[in-house]
């Protein structure tokens, strides 16, 4: 089933400024769309609006059928919440079995829980479970009703790193063939789960595309920064401009894994900082007034002078910010 949403809604909390969400996206059958954005960008409100929890303008359609006036219980969605939202007064099995009264063909709770690795918890109550266990149960509850579309709202955000990685792997399996909309602020999660990514900022979808497009060809500095690219304003980095022979005032982006460094290259730079990450070292260089990041398994020393190379095929000019450029 495909889902199309073009919603516009205004939300006002007590005393706070009202917040406007105005976003359109489409998800094809079997596709996982990840909505990626900073906190406060309206991702969760958008997802809840699609689910039917908030009134809104603009159509939400499922396979071309407009569902604006369909209450949530008739929309055939599954929903996984950041804070699990398990019913505390029901056992794990009762939680997973919750939807069976309203759906003809539901999955067996015990089997489903066993598949998700929590088969031993069926008679426990949610408040006695760890965060990771609760989220697996919540996932089972949503899957049990065999929903046409799965909606997931930052399901990993409240979890520890190891728990998160293990559940993310299972989510990847679950979502492989499902139609799903997945909200997160974590770019690694987005890349791991998405067929396509919609980047959201300030209530609006600012770019939508494949992970490769989003990560390698960001259309704005915001998208580039949020996906971890180096964002280089050439005005602040004359030595990069002259090295690259770029005939524009624009902003270029390049992924840190594409930046090379060594004893020779395009631009001279100073090592400013080294952070050890799981697989490698994240090295920050200073060139003129800008910083550039790269990865290196064997890190140089802070203060070293090196030469950076920006491979031409990895460089990207931000379209929005430089209408006419030639790299």
């Amino acid at each position, binding site marked *: 089933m495909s889902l199309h949403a073009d919603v516009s809604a205004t939300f006002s909390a007590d005393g706070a400024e009202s917040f406007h969400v105005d976003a359109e996206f489409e998800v094809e059958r079997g596709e996982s769309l990840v909505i990626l954005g900073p906190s406060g960008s309206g991702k969760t409100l958008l997802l809840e609006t699609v*689910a039917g*929890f908030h009134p809104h303008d603009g159509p939400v359609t499922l396979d071309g059928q407009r569902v604006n006036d369909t209450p949530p*219980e008739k929309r055939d969605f599954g*929903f996984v919440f950041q804070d699990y*939202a398990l*019913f505390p*007064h029901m056992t794990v099995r009762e939680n997973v079995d919750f939807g069976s009264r*309203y759906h003809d063909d539901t999955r067996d709770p015990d089997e489903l829980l066993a598949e998700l690795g929590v088969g031993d918890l069926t008679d426990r109550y949610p408040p006695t479970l760890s965060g990771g266990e609760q989220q697996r149960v919540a996932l089972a509850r949503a899957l049990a009703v065999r929903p046409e579309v799965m909606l997931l709202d930052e399901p990993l955000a409240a979890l520890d790193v190891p728990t998160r990685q293990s559940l993310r792997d299972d989510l990847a399996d679950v979502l492989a063939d499902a139609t799903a909309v997945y909200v997160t602020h974590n770019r690694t999660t987005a890349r791991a789960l998405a067929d396509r990514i919609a980047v959201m900022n300030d209530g609006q979808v600012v770019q939508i595309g494949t992970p490769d497009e989003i990560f390698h060809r960001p259309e704005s500095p915001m998208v580039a920064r949020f996906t971890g690219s180096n964002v280089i304003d050439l005005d602040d980095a004359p030595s990069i401009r002259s090295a690259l022979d770029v005939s524009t005032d624009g902003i270029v982006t390049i992924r840190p894994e594409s930046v090379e460094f060594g004893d020779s290259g395009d631009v001279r730079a100073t090592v400013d900082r080294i952070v050890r990450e799981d697989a490698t070292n994240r090295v920050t260089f200073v060139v003129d007034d800008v910083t550039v990041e790269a990865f290196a398994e064997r890190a140089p020393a802070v203060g070293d002078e090196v030469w950076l190379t920006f491979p031409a095929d990895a460089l990207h000019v931000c379209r929005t910010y430089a209408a006419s450029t030639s790299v």
Partner: protein
Amino acid sequence: HGDSFVVAAATLGSILMVALGLPLFLFVARQQPSIIVEKALNPDVHQMLYLGVYGPLLAAIVSLVFGVPLAHLLSKGFAGQQLVESLVDLPLVVPHSVAGILILFGFGKGGAFPNVTVLGSMVGMVLAMTFVSAPYAVNATREAFESINDRLEYASRIHGASRWDTFRRVTAPLAVRGMVTGGVLAWARAVSEFGAVAVVAYSVSFFYPPAGGEVTTQHAPVFVYGTYLQGGLAESGAVAFILLGVSALIFLIIR
């Protein structure tokens, strides 16, 4: 020194505790057992106790039946909510004797329902009690509804439950303690109501099972006041002692 803060707070707080606790202590200490026994054997007191439990129970039930739906609506919010909130809280700020007069204007002679006798009737007493105790039922239940995470109701809806089913399977079970609290508060408030009842129904006739027929007595706080006016502090103290004892017992049983 840091602890001087705690000492100062404790000193001021203790003075208030004395003002609240000493009367209760001396009230208990200065009772005369002979008068208590006499009053405890008095059939009038028995009738008063029966009415003092039974009438408030009716008021609490009425408050919950109509108050829980209202509390649920208030917890979700709606247009014109502030006006409704003001009306709900009205009985809390109106002097109780004035509340009685309001009820007589509204439902007494020349009021909304000419066929219903309110003045001096059981209906009037329960109406007066409901008027002053409904806000407690509404507010306690509303608080319970509001403390439920919205997303639990979202989860129920999205996985297939209608509003009705969501209320029955999720909202109500999670708010049931708040409803019980609201009912108990409404009941306690009705038990202790003096002013409105004294104005609307000073004396009440009602069916009293042990006598097999109608008897006439006063609602407990009115009865205590009447005893005070006629018999003085010692006698009314004994009646009040029995009333507090029975109330405390019922409270313990509910818990």
